């Protein structure tokens, strides 16, 4: 019994250790290099790349482990960290051999990434994949469809063969399952937060950006199975949600600092890995199904304009469904869309008298004393309630 618990724990830990190694790897594993299609957040249709037999490679910056030596000379001092470290990874040859690069017009800095890549790594044939900001327009679905078809053609040229509907349908299936498994992780985080910490969930999901989805599905199934048997000592911490991690990712230290004193029962971390919120229909024209999913079942974020999804309402729903008593409203430094929403959201929470903490982070930050003080104070105020 006791030994069983230890085995479960150690088995789970070794999975996380692998995820940890995968998440922090800056260099693309040798054999994958030429197959990797790098893409900048958020709403990228990985399925099409997967169907082409290529490796969709989410560019998530270099975190606080990459030393920025060249990028500072190429990017304005007032630009977010993920653009900076991603450029650094390019310039220091960690991403030298990718077979493609796509940025999306989620913000003005991201559009420039296509320019930077084009000037420095033309052989990767960097592109902007259009992403309509006028999501609720009747013409939008058709337009996304056309743009996805363009992507399909570009990839077909890369692999030298057509990408069939059946291949894409198969990929939809793989990704539908992957998202189901991710939702299961989040359900545990929400219903039994002592069982699965946010850092653990984060590592499990982030690992998926570095391996094939089939492999990731196996890993997640195994992890979920172990989690069900995991021995937990229930803890008593305030339940909060965390928003602001939709593009640039906060350092692990930051998530841990928060989790020392709170349960993060829902968040928008790595939302680009799970932006499609329900299963995509696997019958009919798969590209249409994918395009239609962006319009009909995509997660809201500060970089998507959709009159049907007012940001404040989305937040209130998130709070309600997560049964959270408070919110941490963060934004990446110099992230205009994030900062604009941060204010709107915190003002709304002020009006609703919902306790919240406004945090600004930088992916490359390394000192967390001040942040710890802020988070502890926040937790202390919640304990006063």
């Amino acid at each position, binding site marked *: 019994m006791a030994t069983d618990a*230890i085995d479960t724990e150690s088995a789970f*830990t070794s999975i996380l250790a692998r995820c940890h190694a995968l998440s922090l790897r800056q260099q693309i594993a040798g054999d994958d290099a030429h197959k990797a299609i790098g893409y900048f957040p958020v709403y990228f249709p990985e399925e099409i790349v997967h169907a082409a037999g290529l490796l969709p490679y989410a560019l998530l910056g270099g975190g606080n482990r990459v030393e920025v030596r060249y990028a500072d000379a190429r990017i304005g001092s007032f630009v977010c960290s993920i653009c900076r470290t991603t450029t650094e990874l390019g310039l220091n040859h960690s991403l030298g051999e990718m077979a493609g690069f796509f940025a999306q017009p989620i913000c003005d800095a991201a559009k420039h990434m296509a320019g930077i890549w084009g000037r420095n790594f033309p052989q990767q044939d960097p592109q902007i994949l259009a992403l309509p900001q006028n999501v609720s327009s009747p013409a939008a679905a058709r337009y996304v469809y056309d743009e996805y078809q363009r992507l399909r053609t570009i990839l077909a040229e890369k692999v030298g063969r057509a990408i069939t509907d059946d291949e894409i349908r198969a990929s939809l299936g793989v990704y539908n399952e992957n998202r189901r498994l991710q939702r299961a992780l989040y359900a545990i985080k929400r219903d039994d937060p002592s069982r699965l910490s946010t850092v653990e969930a984060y*590592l499990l999901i982030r690992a998926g950006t570095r391996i094939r989805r089939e492999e990731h599905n196996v890993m997640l199934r195994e992890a979920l199975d172990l989690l069900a048997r995991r021995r937990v000592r229930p803890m008593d911490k305030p339940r909060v949600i965390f928003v602001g991690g939709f593009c640039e990712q906060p350092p692990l230290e930051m998530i*841990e600092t928060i989790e020392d004193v709170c349960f993060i029962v829902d968040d928008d971390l790595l939302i680009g890995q799970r932006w499609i919120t329900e299963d995509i229909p696997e019958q009919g024209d798969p590209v249409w199904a994918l395009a239609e999913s962006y319009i009909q079942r995509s997660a809201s974020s500060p970089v998507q304009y959709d009159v049907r999804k007012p940001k404040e309402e989305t937040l209130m729903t998130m709070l309600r469904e997560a049964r959270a008593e408070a919110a941490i409203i963060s934004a990446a430094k110099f992230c205009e869309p994030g900062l604009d929403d941060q204010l709107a959201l915190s003002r709304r929470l002020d009006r609703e008298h919902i306790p919240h903490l406004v945090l600004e982070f930088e992916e490359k930050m390394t000192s967390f004393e*001040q942040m710890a003080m802020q988070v502890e104070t926040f937790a*202390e*105020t919640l304990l006063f309630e």
Partner: protein
Amino acid sequence: MTTADILVAGIDIGSTYTKAVLIDSARAVRATAIRRSGYKPATAASVVFDDLVANAGVPPACVTYIATTGYGRYMVPFRHTQITELTCHAVATSHHFPDVRTILDIGGQDIKAIRIDEQGRVRAFRLNDKCAAGTGAFLEKTARYLGLQTSDIGAYALRAEQPVEISSVCAVFAESEVINHLASGVAPEDIMEGAIVALGGRAVQLMKRVGLEPDYALAGGMTNNPAMVAALENKLGAPLLLPPDGLGQLNGAFGAALLGARRVTKLLAEGRAIVSPTSADETKPRRWSTYVAPVSAGAGVAATA
């Protein structure tokens, strides 16, 4: 023992000064102590604690509970609990002034603006970044350049007739500015006052970020600096409340003591034992952020043991 003679100590280990306050169950201050923090926070804390009990004339054993705060709050092994200075300032200030909504604490190495509610709960707060241009260090540097003691700054600057503007955003460049002013014959007190006004301006900016809501209070060492108080009131166009009985710089420590006392009352009421939480620290979950994969195969497993 009866709750009558329960003594609670609050220790604020700040970047510049370490401060301690001893209160009894009537929340009355029994003794205080203060020293420069130096570079060994733990030592500073225990020395100040010894001063404290000595000043109070009680044996250390009579102190039931010890709450620490300030940037060195975790560095005190003999504490029972640690609380952040923001919470402590909030509690202490609203203990004195229930109507205060915005608190400013100008420390040696940072500035904090805190908005609190009627129950003395922290509602919002902002801290300045680690740039000396916006901290007490800026004044001390200028003072040192003018050959002044920190404690003389206030009285000295009050003599200023027309303070000069210090426009540099960098404390180092500001020094060259100071030099030039001296060269062009500006009176030192006018320069000192200029520095105070500059810092005061930055501080009020920070207060605005948390929503400038009266009443206002000042806490921390700057309460010893009448010129800064005047400059701030001038910028705010409103009075600035200062903790009474010389508790200004001790505000954080006092708040820690108050919260410690609350905790003790609660524990005793629930008939629970008073244990030091430091033992609980071991139960912290694994830090994946600092995880280094062991070289041997089966890595993670080994790591868990």
